[in-house]
């Protein structure tokens, strides 16, 4: 049975079995489902285990009174929205005031007149169904909004990071909507030798190879919680410490670069054996202040990172040999404690295009024992 066809469920609470039977009969005749209990404790258990759409509750009962039941249910977040009609004596003004204080939604006079009962129940049913429909639409809109945000996220970041952002419901809408300036670590990776390869390879195969290359790099980026900002030609730009701060962004970037090189090496070997041309990945990493935000026109927007660390990482990538990672001094300072000295070579001060001051550059070698092409 679908939700639209489900009967409206009324819980009748009355210690007088004749009143319970009477109310139940009238409700059933109107196509509603009536469950009858004869005391307050049973009512609370029933509501918790099988919440009804409406409660008709006598006031004067041994044990828990109608006021007690009303107060408890209205005080619980999960049951507060269930409408409660208290059944009181016509002349019992005091009970009505107590009922209002306890949170009752409406009152029904004893003796109960069927016309009055049905009119009140029908009104509350309409209200309840409208409320449920609004709640259903609100939840559906929320799911839709989250799904849209998730789709946006998934273009840039790992599913794990997307889940973390989605879990932060208050911030998730703002992450990509607002520009931010923050300290970032930018990593640029580029495929070397690929232009020569494309000249000799059938176009369909070229696309397959590029996809394989980008899959390896993206997987490595996701594993280290990087945000992918750009894929162009055979170059990839990823950022760390963005959109969320990370405790060790430089170390993450280094490990990510390491993984990119080690994972790509066997693929490059295979390509070389197939095509006879050596390829490799060169990587540049730099850190500093950058601006992150959605940039573009109404026709095309892109989540972008702009600033010196990005430009410098791009220049370092251009200088890097295949299987070499070049980093600026700021990044190296962060990595000094985790990289064996024998894997580091100072390249001295290098003037990078677009930068007024020379930058101290360090080359980091990644051991690739099974790779036929060797390191930098």
């Amino acid at each position, binding site marked *: 049975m679908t939700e639209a066809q489900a009967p409206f469920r009324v819980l009748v609470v009355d*210690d*007088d*079995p*004749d*009143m319970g*039977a*009477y109310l139940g*009969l009238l409700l059933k*005749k109107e196509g509603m489902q009536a469950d009858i209990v004869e005391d307050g404790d049973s009512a609370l258990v029933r509501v918790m285990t099988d919440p009804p759409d409406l409660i008709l509750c*006598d006031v*004067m009962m041994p044990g828990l009174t109608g006021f007690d039941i009303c107060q408890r249910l209205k005080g619980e977040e999960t049951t507060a929205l269930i409408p409660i009609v208290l*059944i009181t*004596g016509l002349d019992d003004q005091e009970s009505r005031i107590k009922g209002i204080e306890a949170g009752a939604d409406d009152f029904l006079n*004893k*003796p*109960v*007149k*069927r016309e009055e009962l049905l009119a009140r129940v029908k009104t509350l049913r309409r209200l309840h169904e409208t409320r449920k429909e609004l709640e259903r639409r609100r939840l559906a809109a929320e799911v839709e909004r989250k799904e849209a945000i998730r789709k946006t996220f998934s273009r840039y970041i790992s599913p794990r990071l997307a889940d973390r952002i989605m879990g932060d419901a208050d911030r998730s809408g703002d992450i990509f909507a607002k520009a931010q300036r923050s300290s970032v670590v930018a990593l640029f990776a580029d495929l070397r030798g690929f232009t020569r390869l494309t000249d000799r390879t059938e176009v369909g195969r070229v696309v397959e190879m590029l996809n394989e290359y980008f899959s390896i790099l993206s997987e490595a980026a996701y594993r280290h919680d990087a945000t992918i900002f750009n894929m162009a030609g055979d170059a990839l730009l990823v950022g760390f410490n963005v959109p969320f701060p990370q405790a060790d962004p430089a170390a993450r970037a280094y490990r990510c670069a390491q993984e990119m090189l080690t994972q790509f090496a066997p693929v490059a070997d295979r390509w070389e054996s197939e095509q006879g041309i050596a390829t490799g990945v060169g990587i540049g990493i730099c850190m500093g202040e950058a601006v992150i935000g959605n940039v573009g026109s109404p026709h095309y927007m892109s989540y972008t990172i702009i600033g010196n660390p990005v430009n410098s990482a791009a220049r370092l990538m251009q200088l890097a040999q295949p299987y070499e990672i070049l980093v600026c001094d700021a990044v190296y300072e962060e990595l000094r404690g985790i990289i064996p000295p024998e894997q580091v070579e100072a390249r001295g001060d290098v003037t990078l295009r677009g930068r007024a001051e020379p930058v101290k550059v360090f080359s980091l070698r990644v051991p690739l024992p099974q790779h036929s092409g060797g390191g930098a």
Partner: protein
Amino acid sequence: MAEINYTAVVAKDLEDLIPVFIKNRTKELDSLKTAIGAGDFEQLKQLGHRMKGVGNSYGFAPISDFGKTIEDSAKVSDKATIDGCISAYADYLANVKIVYE
């Protein structure tokens, strides 16, 4: 109390409930007698309150009237009025004629 109408006009759709309803009223009468014998006015008040609510709902207006009298009298421990009311209630139950409409 106004003159008692011994004809109860009951909605046709309540017909199936009436045998149990009448049986419960007979039990109720016994409970009233026990309570008045014991001088238990709290019990009489509760029984009267219940009668007041259920009688008219089913179409038995005098039961509601008896109930109200018993409840009110129990609040002031008026044994004589309750005694009279219980007798009248017993007479009503013995002679009531039910018409279904």
